[in-house]
């Protein structure tokens, strides 16, 4: 028996000597890594209470974050189902260093018990999406790395505030957990700037621009100036119509202009004269916002003159002739006309424009020819030799004052007007009553061509067509140039005292009574019987 005791003592001593620490003899297993600092005999009662297992109070003495959460009624550990349990029910220990003190079943975890119900998009998120150190504000918890503690219920706990605090912290007032966009909770009608008309259809970013705030690109929603349209819209009128765009425009469409209030006079093309009575669409078409060219009249008006006044491709200024009040009458004055190559002189001053410029019901102004016959009919036709119309100009005889006032050097014709001829009107010789024409070429220049031969051919001579001039002068019809002495029967004696009719009796030639001057029988008996 004595030997037995020795052996037993030896065995027991050997077995115990293998144990490096007495503690390990009592510990049912290694503590997990999280609690490894509590290994050791002296630490047992830091967690255990004799006869009372591991009271929650011991756990919470160290786990003050949990204690705080419970005190504040927050988090999963404040849920009644959890508080009714001992800590070690879920977080048992002494299962080895690698034991997961927290075995989190993310698939079956009821997040409602945390006091933060996962809804909407949050339901499909992985735990790590929210539960990560960067979302934890508490510095101590942040150091832990992997922890489900430390998140706040407010959105900013996990979500970065892309508004950089400009819209406050109540994200849910606008956004929902169903998705950051669309912003279902936001009603622009409750904003200071109520969206109307086309504003309802405009993308938010059109008005809510991105600005740099604290080095971040932030879409600005608050503090946007909207009291004038120019806050967002560029004033294409460059201030000419004032600041109140609504006086003409409405929010439905920029092109729906309230014409009653529109002052075209403020545009670059003030409406004057007849333009004030023209319908908008005549110039602007269907789109009042269209900006028709207006530098040239032809930008709107067709060129009635079909390029007559076009130099190169530019139509000369219509205003030189037309006024804005009406296309006609033209304000192309005589003075202006007189400055062109065909000044209006004489009768042309009183001539209606139509006489020269309205041809075949079409006004024509640009004339290549300005000769008289380009307008006037050559009344004389073949009767007037071209040598008297140099350059088809009539000025050789006529002037601008009147057709009837003819100034012509008749000497040029070789038929000098002498005596009574110089006192006669032209028409006395040149106008033919029957044909109602002036005859020139047809007037041969012989006496007979104008005068009737009252002598019925008694003095005709083949040698001299103007045999009349042998007796008559141009002063009168008295035969002043006749001398009976030069005849075959010179008067002598009593004969020289006799009246002509004593000898020259009335006879008949061609059954016409006529004084017979040509006496062939000079016998005395022929008179004295």
């Amino acid at each position, binding site marked *: 028996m004595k*030997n*037995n*005791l020795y*052996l*037993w003592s030896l*065995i*027991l001593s050997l*077995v*115990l000597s293998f*144990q490096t620490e007495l503690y*390990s*003899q*009592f*510990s*049912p*297993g290694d503590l997990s890594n999280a609690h490894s600092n509590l290994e050791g005999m002296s630490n*047992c009662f830091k967690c*255990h209470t*004799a*006869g*009372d*297992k*591991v009271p929650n109070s011991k756990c919470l003495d160290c786990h003050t974050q949990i204690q705080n959460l419970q005190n504040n009624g927050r988090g999963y550990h404040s849920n009644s189902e959890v508080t009714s349990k001992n800590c070690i029910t879920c977080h*048992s220990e*002494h*299962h*080895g260093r*690698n*034991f*997961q003190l927290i*075995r989190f079943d993310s698939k079956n975890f009821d997040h409602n018990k945390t006091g933060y119900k996962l809804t909407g998009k949050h339901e499909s998120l992985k735990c790590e999406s929210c539960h990560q150190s960067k979302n934890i504000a508490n510095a101590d918890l942040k150091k832990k790395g992997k922890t489900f503690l430390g998140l706040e219920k407010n959105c900013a706990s996990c979500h970065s505030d892309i508004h950089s605090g400009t819209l406050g912290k109540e994200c849910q007032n606008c956004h929902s957990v169903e998705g950051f966009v669309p912003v279902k909770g936001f009603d622009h009608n409750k904003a200071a700037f109520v969206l109307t008309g086309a504003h309802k259809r405009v993308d938010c970013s059109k008005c809510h621009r991105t600005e740099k705030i604290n080095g971040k690109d932030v879409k600005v929603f608050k503090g946007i100036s909207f009291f004038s349209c120019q806050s967002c819209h560029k004033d294409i009128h460059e201030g000419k119509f004032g600041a109140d765009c609504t006086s003409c425009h409405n929010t439905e469409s920029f092109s729906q202009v309230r014409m009653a209030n529109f002052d075209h006079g403020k545009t670059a093309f003030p409406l004057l004269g007849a333009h004030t009575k023209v319908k908008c669409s005549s110039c602007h078409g269907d789109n009042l916002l269209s900006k028709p060219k207006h530098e040239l009249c032809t930008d709107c008006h067709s060129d009635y003159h079909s390029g007559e006044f076009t130099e190169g491709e530019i139509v000369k200024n219509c205003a030189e002739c037309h006024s804005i009040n009406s296309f006609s009458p033209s304000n192309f004055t005589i003075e202006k006309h007189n400055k062109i190559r065909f000044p209006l002189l004489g009768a042309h001053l009183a001539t209606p424009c139509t006489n020269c410029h309205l041809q075949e019901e079409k006004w024509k102004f640009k004339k290549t020819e300005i000769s008289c016959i380009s307008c006037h009919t050559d009344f004389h036709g073949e009767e007037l030799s071209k040598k008297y119309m140099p350059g088809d100009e009539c000025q050789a005889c006529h002037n601008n004052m009147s057709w009837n006032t003819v100034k012509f050097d008749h000497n040029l014709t070789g038929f000098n007007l002498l005596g009574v001829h110089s006192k006669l009107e032209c028409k006395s010789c040149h106008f033919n009553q029957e044909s109602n024409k002036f005859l020139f070429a047809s007037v041969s220049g012989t006496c007979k061509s104008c005068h009737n031969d009252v002598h019925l051919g008694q003095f005709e001579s083949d040698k001299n067509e103007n045999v009349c001039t042998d007796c008559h002068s141009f002063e009168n019809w008295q035969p002043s140039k006749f001398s009976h002495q030069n005849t075959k029967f010179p008067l002598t004696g009593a004969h020289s005292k006799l009246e002509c009719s004593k000898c020259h009796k009335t006879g008949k030639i061609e059954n016409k009574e006529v004084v017979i001057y040509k006496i062939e029988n000079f016998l005395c008996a022929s008179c004295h019987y």
Partner: protein
Amino acid sequence: MSPLTHRIYITLFFVIAISSFLLLAINGFGYYSTPLTERPFSDLHSALKPSGTLGHFLGIAGSIMMGVGVSSYMLRKRVRALFKFGTLKNWLEFHIFLCVTGPVLVLFHTAFKFGGIVSISFWSMTAVVLSGIAGRFIYTQIPRSVKGNELDITEIKRLQNELSEKLKEDYNLDEKVIDKIDSLSSKILTQSNSTFTDFFKALGLKLKVNGEINRLKTELLQKQIPESLAIQICSTAKEKVMLDGRVKILKSMHALFRYWHIFHLPFAITMFVIMIIHIIAVLIFSF
């Protein structure tokens, strides 16, 4: 206790021990085969962990069984007043039953998690159980009476003679066969000076005896001895050869049995001491 009652008694112990082991093993295989760090998350953890509803019960039950098994046997063995209560052999069998089944329950109580001071208790228990099996073997190698009392050398000699006489007279075997049976033990087992060599010889004794007896049976049958008679002869011959063999290693077995005692008991005491410390620790820390 009649042989039948004894057989039922032993069978019942065997069935209870084996079925306990199988039921607990099958029931908790999923849990026990789970890594230690995963077990707390098993649905069976609350029941099968050492402090669980079933695990704790197994620990208490197993401890009680071992306590009762050890103490009852020791008391019966050592307290004279109790000598009259049953045979020591039956108490030993009861001791073996409790101290095999109890460790089985404790084994499942540990949930196969061996650590800390209580592991000393567990491994001491294991040593006690294994040594108990060895002790039981050594115990059986020492010739005993029907009641289990150890036979002295005179009684052994008389028993050997009785068996020889039985072979000669009851079965009318000729001298050659008798001589051969007498020489079998010498053929099978040679005397050695080493106690432990004799232990290992004892381990193979039964097998070798069975082999020789089978050959003897063949010879008997070849001599036209009826099979039923041959079986009876072989049975007696086997008893005789085994006894002869055990007599040859009796000294060594006695020595081993002494050693066994100073091995078996200290481990048992160690087991109980640590177990008590373990119980105290549990009560204090309430794991």
